């Protein structure tokens, strides 16, 4: 690449990076440098901590469910050819493409009190004002990240590795467990981290399906913003940002290091 091209690419890339980084850096800087006391009082606020904790917990549960259900789906999409595969791939990607308010409405029509699943489970379970609803909404919006990454992971494993394993006496399940899954795991792990990050940030779909309570972190930010203004909401936003960023960086880099030696 010529110097002129590199320079223009760097300039264009810097513009985008500035757009991405400036708001995040500003909120951190404003809160931690100019209103650290406010941040500390947010950290001591029980309702805020409960909301952030609930977000983290529900996001983790939704990622675990996505892992258990999404990994086999990803394997089938990566390895098998079947009728309707393109349609299924479309469905997998749809939650990432539709506005999340639409996702919320769609979920309500199925899991809401009047929805066909919601109605049948209503004697025992309800999605409204419940942890179950939060997890379902998070799962819905975050699954594409995990499944797509896992599909890439399984596709990166040469099928001939699996064939060799079969010739060495491994059953299909043993090949999956001992060869395909471990080799695709860095992709799956990366997808799970992205999926977790997406789940914890979800607001619209959760509020549409569950309502404001139990309150998740983005709900708390929204509530504080509308009832007490920008300054009041910034503490929760900063806390959520720090937690998300730390988990994201920690998992990404420990994950990379875990697999790098091979």
């Amino acid at each position, binding site marked *: 690449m010529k110097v002129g091209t590199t320079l223009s690419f760097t300039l264009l890339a810097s513009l985008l990076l500035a757009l991405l980084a400036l708001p995040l850096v500003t909120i951190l800087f404003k809160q931690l440098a100019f209103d650290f006391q406010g941040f500390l009082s947010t950290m001591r606020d029980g309702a805020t901590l409960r909301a952030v904790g609930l977000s983290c917990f529900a996001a983790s549960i939704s990622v675990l469910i996505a892992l258990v259900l999404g990994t086999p789906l990803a394997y089938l999409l990566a390895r098998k050819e079947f009728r309707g595969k393109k349609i299924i791939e479309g469905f997998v990607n749809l939650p990432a493409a539709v506005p999340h308010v639409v996702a919320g409405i769609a979920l309500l029509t199925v899991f809401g009190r009047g929805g066909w699943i919601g109605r049948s489970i209503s004697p025992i379970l309800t999605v409204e004002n419940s942890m179950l609803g939060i997890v379902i909404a998070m799962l819905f919006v975050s699954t594409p990240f995990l499944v797509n990454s896992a599909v890439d992971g399984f596709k990166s494993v040469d099928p*001939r590795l699996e*064939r060799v*394993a079969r*010739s*060495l006496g*491994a*059953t299909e399940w043993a090949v999956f467990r001992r*060869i395909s899954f471990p080799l695709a795991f860095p992709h799956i792990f990366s997808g799970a981290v992205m999926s977790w990050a997406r789940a914890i940030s979800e607001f619209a779909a959760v509020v549409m399906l569950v309502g404001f309570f139990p309150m998740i972190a983005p709900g708390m930010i929204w509530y504080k913003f509308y009832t007490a203004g920008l300054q009041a909401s910034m503490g929760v936003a900063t806390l959520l940002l720090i937690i998300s960023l730390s988990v994201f960086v920690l998992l990404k880099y420990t994950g990379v290091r875990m697999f790098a030696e091979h």
Partner: protein
Amino acid sequence: MSKEWGGFSLRKINLEVQGGEYFVILGPTGAGKTLLLEIVAGFHRPDEGKIIVGGEDVTDLPPERRRIGFVYQEYFLFPHLKVRENVEFGLRMRGEDEKKIRRRSLRIMRALGIDHLKARYPAALSGGEKQRVALARALVLEPRLLLLDEPLSALDPITRENLRNELKSVHRRFGTTFIHVTHDREEALLLADRIGVMNKGRIVEIGEPEKIFRKPRSEFVANFVGFENVFRGTSVAKGGIAEVDLGNGVRIEAVGEKSGGVKACIRPEEIFLSKRPLESSGRNVLRGWISEISDRGATVRLKVRAGKEFAVIVTKRSFEDLKLRTGSKVYLTFKASAVHLI
């Protein structure tokens, strides 16, 4: 057996390999060699026909129950497992006890000279080491049959030669039946007890290397095993010598009894090239001129127009000593026994 696969078809393959034999399937890229091996291994099911191993019909058995080893060109060692774990993989899949696993894996690694590599990951191995590990991983299970898909193609020439010798020695030591596919005729000639030549999804000829390389039965096989000069002609045979009219005023003599329409095949290295007519036992002497020169390092390949266009190979030294150029007038001399008639 026959098989249609992704627009390609294997047609009426009928092949019998003897126990303990080193059988080489030789053919150009795209002949269907790998697909044939993968069907034998059980990775694909034939559309019709059967695969029988040691008298047992294995057509419906999954690969893991066939006891057939497979070594691909790229070896496909499991990259997340160390060498020892790769070698032990099959034994673990069989549910052998830990002591037996350790004993057998160590024995095979010693036999193939890779025991010092046991703690390494495949990424840290050379091409030759990878091949030894792949062989050890397959042979530790004592398979009834070992399938080798172009196992030497990914190697540099020196390593390839070393490992070619090693493959032969491993075959002798372990006595396992080998089916090895390759497009390299030298490899086939040096390794095979018998060769099957494959083209466009068919096995076109089977025989001992000497027979395939000296007396091929078809033009395709003749070309593939190095008879670069194949000419159609009309032969009249008498007393063990055939006189062949190749057209354009070119008449040559061949050893044989074939009369009528024939194909005369001559290897380029069997043709002697000189600037003056030679006093020799060669019954065929043709006069012509050089139309094309291709330098191949130690040798030079020439095209000579002598009524027909002949391919001739000379050493680089001869080429320089004779001061050959495009357009140089030359004589081609070859024995009647160097002409194979199909």
